[in-house]
């Protein structure tokens, strides 16, 4: 009896997130997937139905035109590549900044650690949009940074900071840095300090010990943090729209324009499906590393 209710409880616990993913991820995905294989038309909804009836016979209508269109216009390919580049550079910057921070937090005293972690999470208390807008105030031609530099005499003409790649990197790195730091911290915090002592004892200088003991062992944390930054950064919409270039847009912006400006749902859906395909590779990599870590922990 007790065993039965325990099994039921276990099913409930696993069932809720499964249902959640099913209804809020898989079903929308299938809808988008289905729309991507239709053609645009002036109607409500603005795309051709999957099954059409002509003179009493049902016909399955599948169009690949949305996909072929993506490869005829260079705008889409260049947006994809640009998004990948921005996401990759931002991820590397986050890693370079986040690793030392996570390491320092993991090595600090228990009381300080709680405060430092709190500081990492603190920006989330303010709206994301508000924080990105704040960067406009900092970066624009008569913004805080330019004014201070002009006042100090470091520069004589304001620097064009806003609407550059640089501004996008700043925005993404600033916004996503906690997602890099937290998984790295969770990993580094578990490291046994005796391992570094053992490495020193065997003749490894601190830097060598770090590279050959700490870094390989923190690989799961590096991968988790990088993907948590890389995946949302590829599809980032708000930051490049507010801070970025106008001559080169990211794929998230393309997606939104197709939906809301062009009202071309099939092409927008095809763009979304291709973003997903691009991200499947890193997600699978993530799962492999995670699985390996679970095996190692046994």
């Amino acid at each position, binding site marked *: 009896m007790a065993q039965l209710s325990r099994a039921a409880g276990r099913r409930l616990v696993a069932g809720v997130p499964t249902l959640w993913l099913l209804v809020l991820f898989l079903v929308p995905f299938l809808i988008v997937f289905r729309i991507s294989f239709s053609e645009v038309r002036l109607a409500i909804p603005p795309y051709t139905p999957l099954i059409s009836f002509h003179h009493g016979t049902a016909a399955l209508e599948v169009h690949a035109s949305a996909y072929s269109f993506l490869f005829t216009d260079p705008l889409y390919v260049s947006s994809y590549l640009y998004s990948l580049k921005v996401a990759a550079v931002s991820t590397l910057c986050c890693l370079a900044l986040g690793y030392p921070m996570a390491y320092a937090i993991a090595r600090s005293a228990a009381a300080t650690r709680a405060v430092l972690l709190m500081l990492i999470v603190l920006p989330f208390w303010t709206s994301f949009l508000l924080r990105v807008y704040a960067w406009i105030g900092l970066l624009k031609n008569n913004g805080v940074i330019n004014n201070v530099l002009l006042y100090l005499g470091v520069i004589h003409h304001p620097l064009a900071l806003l609407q550059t790649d640089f501004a996008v990197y700043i925005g993404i790195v600033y916004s996503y840095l906690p997602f890099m730091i937290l998984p790295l911290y969770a990993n580094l915090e578990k490291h046994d300090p005796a391992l570094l002592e053992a490495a020193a004892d065997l003749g490894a200088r601190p830097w060598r*010990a770090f590279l050959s003991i700490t870094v390989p062992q923190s690989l799961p944390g590096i991968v988790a943090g990088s993907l948590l930054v890389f995946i949302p950064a590829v599809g980032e919409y708000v930051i490049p729209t507010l801070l970025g270039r106008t001559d080169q847009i990211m794929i998230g912006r393309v997606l939104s324009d197709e939906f809301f400006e062009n009202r071309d749902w099939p092409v927008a859906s095809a763009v979304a499906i291709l973003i997903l395909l691009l991200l499947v590779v890193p997600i699978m990599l993530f799962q492999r590393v995670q699985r390996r870590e679970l095996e190692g922990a046994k």
Partner: protein
Amino acid sequence: MNALPQSNATGTAAAGTDSAYVRITNLTKRFGDFVAVDNVSLDIRRGEIFCLLGGSGSGKTTLLRMLAGFESPSAGSILIDGFDMSAIPPYERPVNMMFQSYALFPHMSVEKNVAFGLEQEGLSRDAIRRQVGEILDIVKMGAYGARKPHQLSGGQRQRVALARALVKRPKLLLLDEPLAALDKKLREHTQFELLNIQQRLGVTFVVVTHDQEEAMTLGQRLGVMNHGRIAQVGTPSDIYESPATRFVADFIGSVNMFEGKVSDEGTDFVRITCGELGCEVRAERTVTCARGATVWTAIRPEKITIGRQPPATDPAGTEENAVPGTVREIAYMGDMSIYLVQIESGKLLRVTLPNTTRGADRPLSREERVWLSWHGSSPVVLTE
């Protein structure tokens, strides 16, 4: 450090095997207000196994960590083979350590773990492979080179940790509770194997342990530590048979201890009146103590004989070192039995007897009246 004692130490270190290979002088380590190691001076000889024995918080591990270079002394110096270690970081010391947790690198195979130290020296691949193979054969782990640490048993991990430290050919090998993580059967086996390997390679071992049995079997000399100080240094039998203080007598093995006053003294004996014991104890004279001084008499359980009859008076005709009592508890341990005998003052004495005959009824039963007696050389007189 200042030049004079150092050159002196260098001179003596080169002189021979009996001189101090590791010389610890007035070593102190404070953590805030807490004094972990308190003015310790100690010499360790070349090629010996020296055991630092003490309870938790006695400072033994801190002393070991200072030898390895993980902690820097607050005061005092450490010389190894005549060289001052004060300014030498751990990665440049001719010292290797086997960690209590073994601290094997979990992401590396056994071979990689052992090779790690040699790679730091910039040896050629062939030399590394050869030396790793040799040392893994010595610790009988040659067949496990490709395994990861989590695929090994506790005993196998211990061997890999030993190999990893030994492959560096250290002048000094530090072992932190080397057998603590092993089960009893494996411990005994490993103990003798450690001794064997140590003799084969001639490396000086410093072992830290809280386990007196481990210290007695491994160590050629022991240093008993208490509250950051060295309480006594000596061979296992020195420490067991002639403890210098009540702490040492009580810490190593079990002991029956009585407070008393010196009532009479001769050139080769002292007589002590012990209220608790209800009789006078005649002991061989080993310490200087004046008549009337408060001393403690310590007698090991196996040095007391137990019998139904009062012992025959000794040739001198005195009836000393014999006391009647009642058996209260008997603990059968297999190879021997422990008897708790209550004497008239109410105090319980611990007596052990080997079970020499198989299957025979125990010679004594509970609540039986018995006589306890001991030879005049058995009691140790302690003044502190």
